[in-house]
């Protein structure tokens, strides 16, 4: 009762470290999103035509659609385990602001599902014959984009955590909201891969979306999770 309290940011660090520790004890699950990403990207040349000129044109779009679907895949499990085993109840009673703890969980989710995609994206772009000069912009835009996807997706995951078949509902809720991310992300990547210096424009827009999502979504997610406890 008189002991010093843990500060909210230290508490967020604890949540982040615990989620990473839990993920690495189930190592095979960590690799699922990136394997899915590579699989989806492989489908496009098989379904369309393997002409090098066509592939170079669609490379940026393929990377983005694959990244979007892959990060949707991992979203559903973001809060489910914590709700089912009672951990969420304990998080809300820790005396720490729930929005900050939820933000830490979302950051952990991004580190596990977004960062592997960032690292794998140059491989896919190269396989599609994209010019090899703009990997910085490609990886930067994927990093910004997947971070926004994780944040917006966390609201959807919190809203659907109580429903039995939440995954379809989750996609219906989240996909329309992340379309701007797809539009600007794919545009930035496409411009950069074609050596166009105006790629900075869409990148700035992605950055501003990230800041907007960072400041708003943790509160919405925390509120949705509190409702799910009722």
């Amino acid at each position, binding site marked *: 009762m008189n002991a010093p*309290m843990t500060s909210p940011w230290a508490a967020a660090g*604890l949540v982040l470290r*615990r989620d990473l520790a839990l993920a690495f004890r189930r190592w095979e699950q960590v690799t699922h999103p990136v394997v899915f990403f590579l699989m989806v990207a492989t489908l496009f040349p098989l379904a369309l035509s393997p002409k090098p000129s066509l592939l170079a044109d669609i490379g940026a779009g393929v990377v983005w659609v694959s990244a979007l679907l892959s990060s949707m895949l991992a979203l559903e499990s973001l809060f489910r*385990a914590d709700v089912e085993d009672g951990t969420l109840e304990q998080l809300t009673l*820790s005396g720490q602001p729930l929005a900050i703890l939820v933000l830490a969980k979302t950051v952990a989710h991004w580190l596990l599902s977004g960062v592997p995609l960032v690292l794998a994206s140059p491989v896919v772009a190269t396989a599609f014959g994209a010019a090899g000069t703009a990997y910085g912009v490609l990886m930067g835009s994927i990093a910004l984009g997947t971070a926004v996807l994780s944040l917006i997706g966390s609201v959807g995951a919190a809203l659907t955590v109580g429903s039995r078949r939440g995954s379809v509902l989750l996609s219906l809720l989240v996909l329309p909201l992340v379309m701007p991310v797809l539009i600007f992300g794919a545009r930035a990547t496409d411009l950069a891969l074609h050596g166009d210096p105006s790629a900075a424009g869409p990148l700035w827009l992605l950055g501003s979306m990230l800041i907007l999502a960072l400041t708003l979504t943790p509160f919405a997610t925390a509120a949705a999770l509190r409702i799910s406890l009722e």
Partner: protein
Amino acid sequence: MADPADARLEADDLQLWRGQRHVLRGVSFVARAGEFIHLKGPNGSGKTSLLRTLAGFLWPEDGVIRWCGQPVSEDRDGYAAALAYLGHENALKGDLTPLENLRFATRLRYPTSDPALRDALTRLGVAAQADLPARVLSAGQKRRVAMARVLLSQARLWLLDEPFTNLDGRGVADLVAIIAAHTQAGGIALVTSHSDIDLAPGTVRELVLA
């Protein structure tokens, strides 16, 4: 922090509806520092709903909950820090050891060291399992680890929903002693249980939900 002798939980005319069911019909009580309250009632009488309302998970349609004289809606995080809740679920991660589970849950509240965590596990009789993955523990052992979390919470108010589930006779007696020690030190405990709590007359107050 309020004066320890002032710790007081008041429920005033709580009305709770779950869908079409009127679960809590004007529940009122005062729990003062040092009180060990045994919440009784048949299945479906609203014991769990009352504890979840007091923990802040459910919002009553009407009525006020006050902690130390202040409505809890005014300082939710402060109230949350003063209470510990043991629900039906143990809130343990099967892939982490009991020690890691406790380290996480306790450090969210205040910085602590491993010897203190092991002491709590020893008091609950699960020190030998401290470094095994929690998923290999028996149901009763998991319940004891969850109770160690409550013990470590430094919370004044304990809300325990069926804490004796899956415990053997010895475990029940140990846990009753731990709860009694908490209330004797000025804490408050609200405990739901279907079995009688075996303590000297006058130590436990019964609150019956119809």
